[in-house]
């Protein structure tokens, strides 16, 4: 082993840089390197393929939380099954709802969406188009209406019409705006008040280009509305989204799905193995 240490160290340095450039962050990369060096010593391994395979193993382990990601279109907890979408401005919430509505429709479920972004210009119009494309119903109100009451109306309608799934869209917001986070908490309370157990999922939609701030986003949104899963969008770009490695572990939640484009079909279940391979490419 000692004769190959220099070679291994160079390779480890290179891999370290690659992981940093994929947004895993300093702490996570250092930890992976330490784990790896112990693993390699134990395996008495040092060839480049072995090193990369060992590193992939370490990362995949971090990305496999206690709760596995749920199958799209499968197991629904409630009647309706309520999913709340949250996240910062422009991360891809509205588009993702369109895609997920389509996925549930393709699985034969009756889907209704709530246009609870009553703030941003044409946010409702945008969701209405997606709902039409997906074959889902849409509950909406006028601009400036109270977001929580739109959510309540939608859940009420979903129950009355015996829908299988309700997807709730919310306005993008930065966690630094306490008032907006308060509004989100209210939306969640209102849903729970109308249907016990709702929302059954609260998904944080995260743009793959996001850097270390994703950790703060995850923490703050989780404090407000207890996030149950992550969605990573725009993975069809150049960014690798590596910040979900420390984030998924920090919150101990699964990455449910990934967005890989702007159209209805561009939503895939998260595959830790595939994702890790792309990180190390």
């Amino acid at each position: 082993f000692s004769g190959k240490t220099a070679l291994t160290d160079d390779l480890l340095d290179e891999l370290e840089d690659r992981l940093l450039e994929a947004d895993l962050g300093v702490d996570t990369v250092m930890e992976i390197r330490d784990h790896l060096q112990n693993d390699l010593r134990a395996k008495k391994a040092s060839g480049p393929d072995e090193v990369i395979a060992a590193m992939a193993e370490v990362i995949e382990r971090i990305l496999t939380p206690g709760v596995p990601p749920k199958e799209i279109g499968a197991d629904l907890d409630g009647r309706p099954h309520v999913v709340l979408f949250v996240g910062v401005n422009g991360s891809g919430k509205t588009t993702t709802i369109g895609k997920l509505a389509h996925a549930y429709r393709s699985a034969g479920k009756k889907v209704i969406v709530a246009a609870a972004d009553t703030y941003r210009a044409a946010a409702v119009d945008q969701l209405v188009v997606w709902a039409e494309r997906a074959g889902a119903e849409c509950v909406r109100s006028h601009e400036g209406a109270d977001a929580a009451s739109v959510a309540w109306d939608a859940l009420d309608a979903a129950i009355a019409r015996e829908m299988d799934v309700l997807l709730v869209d919310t306005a993008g917001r930065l966690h630094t705006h306490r008032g907006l986070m308060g509004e989100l908490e209210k939306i969640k309370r209102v849903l729970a008040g109308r249907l016990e157990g709702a929302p059954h999922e609260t998904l944080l939609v995260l743009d793959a280009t996001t850097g270390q701030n994703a950790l703060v986003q995850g923490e703050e949104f989780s404090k407000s509305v207890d996030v149950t899963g992550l969605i990573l969008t725009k993975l069809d770009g150049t960014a690798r989204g590596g910040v979900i490695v420390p984030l998924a572990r920090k919150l101990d939640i699964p990455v449910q799905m990934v967005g890989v484009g702007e159209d209805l079909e561009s939503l895939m279940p998260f595959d830790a193995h595939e994702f890790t391979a792309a990180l190390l490419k």
Partner: protein
Amino acid sequence: ALTARLSTVLDRLRGRGVLSEENVTEALRDVRRALLEADVNVGVARSFIESVKEQALGSEVGKGVRPGQQMIGIIHSEMIRLLGGEGNSAEVDLSGSPPVILMLLGLQGSGKTTTAAKLAVHFRSGGRKIGLMGLDPYRPAAGEQLRRLAERIDVPVEVARESEDPVDAGVRILSELKAAGSEVILADTAGRQTVDEALMNELASLRQKLNPQETLLVLDAMTGQDAVTTASAFSGRLDCTGAILTKLDGDARGGAALSLRGVTGLPIRYVGIGEDLGALEVFHPDRMAGRILG
């Protein structure tokens, strides 16, 4: 914070007049970590550290100046210099013969449409007649979004029709806005990925037809390491003249600013600091430096 950490590390060097290689190297390890945590690109952080090291080594610590302070001073001024330096106004120069055209481009969701409307508000206060041009026929209700914003601020707007080619729309709307007397025209384009050949070609062709005075990259301040790849790709292909950093009302450290400067040299002209149409400021290198260094 970095400044506190550096003070602790370097103030152990009291009483010595010169910063040695060993203590500079140790301090710079802390700086590197802080930069990476602030989303500064790995390569950009590396060259930043190199130039700080060069300036710090052997530099005389002035009387009454602690080594920690000396180091922080070097780091701070080097960062300000890299971000655009003091003195020059970052603003767009609107003094050309009208209509002055400014084109906004960038990744999906970075804030282009909102920023176009903000710039309209900002420039109008200078007494100019503004026109807004929406060239996104792809995103559902994109045209409607720009229309609503334009109505709010009472600025003339024209948008691409459903399934109209953006380049044709650009040519069409340019002549319409010119005829309507617009002196400054803000062109909002569809978000796109730099790996999308067809859309990058579309943008290049649009730029050629509109011949804008300013081609501005709109980048989200929370962008991580990808800032370098994205900025180089847009800047390389589109020959950008400046950048706008958005969502600075968040708590992202904003290392993307240094990355983009370090790799493309693009001047950062404005920053978005909120969702409402008044939330736009001229870029200040010193404020950004303080934010990145934390």
